């Protein structure tokens, strides 16, 4: 099913949900299968006749398919509307851009809030544990269903970047290029630790009800908000927090209590409460788990270069941000080193910024310039006018 939505009147945009036919189950790394499978997605621009201009955009942990359209819940522009649009590095007048909601997500793709066909109830915790590779497998099914044999590029930041690496490992023959931004080839102990804090916050909320909150028509909003607050700190650099808030107070003088005296407290509380309107707590558990389980080298005998052994024909571009401490430049360099060792064609840039991990969807002219140049050169190499 496909319905037309209006992101920008000038661009041809489709938003819809692909429901895979019965019998087309998604095999999962855990051994389970998911059926029926639905993937919510949007496309911007038009697929050319040769089907050579398709670019898949992969979202981060709390992103969704609304990359360049107005978000239906928040009413705000999509998470990458700074990069996707007419005249922007990912120009829909030139490229056919596909943005999907990951499997396990909560914006229309099959996830823990979806109905389990066997019981007629929402999955909740009976939803199988998913992995980054499962997300990518579902995307590959959708790309195939859209009639695209080879993607001009697959691009994403953070968890999206991990999907890009997984694509290169699992479907190198379907890729012409791959752009991995602010990501890592595996989750570190620190990454897992922060996620565990978030999950425990959700599970400690009495309204979570062992994952079956939907049946009780309640939501563990407080726990999810705290999870978001903790995670949000990791998306910013210390300098960015200091620059934005310092020790500035909300009102004149201290409250001598536990109100949000400091602006940074108020900001985090706002981040937490606004997040719960658009995200499902169980999806948060499942997707953070998928990230924690991600270790691309471990999938290939402990040698990261082996993951890219068949990707010699893919043009890679790896980008990191100097102040990102969640997925640091050192982790991106590890990826580049493995790509070099595998004999892949790899480029790497560290972008100087104090904005931290979130820089990949903030105003960062060097990022835009680098992406613009790379995509233009890639399109040229593939013979696009």
């Amino acid at each position: 099913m496909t319905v037309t939505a209006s992101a920008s009147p000038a661009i041809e945009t489709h938003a819809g949900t692909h429901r895979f036919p019965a019998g087309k189950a998604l095999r999962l790394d855990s051994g389970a299968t998911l059926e029926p499978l639905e993937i919510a997605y949007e496309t911007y621009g038009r697929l050319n006749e040769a089907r050579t201009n398709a670019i898949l955009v992969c979202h981060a942990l709390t992103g969704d398919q609304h990359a360049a359209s107005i978000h239906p819940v928040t009413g705000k522009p999509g998470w990458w509307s700074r990069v996707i649009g007419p005249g922007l590095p990912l120009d829909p007048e030139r490229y056919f851009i596909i943005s999907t909601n990951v499997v396990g997500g909560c914006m229309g793709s099959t996830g823990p809030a979806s109905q389990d066909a066997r019981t007629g109830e929402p999955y909740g915790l009976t939803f199988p544990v998913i992995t980054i590779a499962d997300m990518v497998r579902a995307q590959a099914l959708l790309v195939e269903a859209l009639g695209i044999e080879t993607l001009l590029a697959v691009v994403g930041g953070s968890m999206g970047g991990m999907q890009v690496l997984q694509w290169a490992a699992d479907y190198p023959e379907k890729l012409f290029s791959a752009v991995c931004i602010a990501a890592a080839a595996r989750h570190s102990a620190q990454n897992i630790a922060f996620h565990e804090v978030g999950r425990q916050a959700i599970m400690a909320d009495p309204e979570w009800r062992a994952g079956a909150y939907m049946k009780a028509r309640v939501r563990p909003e407080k726990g999810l908000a705290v999870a978001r607050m903790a995670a949000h700190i990791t998306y910013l650099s210390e300098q960015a927090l200091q620059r934005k808030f310092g020790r500035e107070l909300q009102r004149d003088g201290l409250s001598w209590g536990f109100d949000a005296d400091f602006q940074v407290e108020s900001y985090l509380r706002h981040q937490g409460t606004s997040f719960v309107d658009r995200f499902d707590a169980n999806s948060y558990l499942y997707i953070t788990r998928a990230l924690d389980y991600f270790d691309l080298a471990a999938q290939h005998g402990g040698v990261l270069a082996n993951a890219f052994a068949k990707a010699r024909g893919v043009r890679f571009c790896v980008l990191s941000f100097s102040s990102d401490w969640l997925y640091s430049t050192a982790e991106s360099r590890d990826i580049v080193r493995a790509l070099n060792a595998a004999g892949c064609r790899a480029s790497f840039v560290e972008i100087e910024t104090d904005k931290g991990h979130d820089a990949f969807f903030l105003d960062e002219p060097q990022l835009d310039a680098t992406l613009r140049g790379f995509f233009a050169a890639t399109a040229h190499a593939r013979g696009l006018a």
Partner: protein
Amino acid sequence: MSPSANPNGREDFREILRLVRPGARVLDVGCGSGELLELLIEGKQVDAQGLEISQAGVSACLAKGLAVVQGDGDRDLDHFPTRAFDYAILSKTLQQMREPRHVLSELLRIAGQAIVSVPNFGHWRMRASLMTRGRMPETRALPDPWWSTPNIHLCTLRDFTDLCRELELRIDACAALSSGKPARPIRPDGALENWRSETALFLLSRRHDDTPGAVPRDLFGDVDMPKPEAPKRKRR
């Protein structure tokens, strides 16, 4: 552009273009915005990779479709696998490295051959300038004053050939470069050359290397090549 045309007026580029085997895998260390790599792709259809320290340089390379890794020649060569390239090129920057000896050694680990050009501090202009003015030479090859020069490890032709000997490197070819003039094949250990060569460009390989592809070739044609010498322990 044909390989014989003068590329961007850089005489070293023209020489490098001559030296490189068609279709080779090439790493250009300190590739700037990729001019040399572009010439090599066009003239010799090489499989090109760049290493560049500046973000602006890397971005410019990406926009040209070149594969470039942002990094520092002093530190990041260590991360390339052994024999990943046929040639590693280091043009006029060895004297700017913190550890030229290590860099030279690494170039010949990651590549079968290295193409290295160095300004010769033994050139008569340098000697004359120091002799007559009593100050650090400022010449057309090395124009910066001592307090702002990026050239922190200068050497003479004789110094460089000594280092090659010490590292057990073989000089497969050597040419003197002088701005505006065609390259001149030379014997780098000739005493006169140490006076009259402004910049020297070397094609180097490891002496004890049985790997096919590292066969010494006279790439300058019928030139009298320096004879490989027995490795001598140099006193330090």
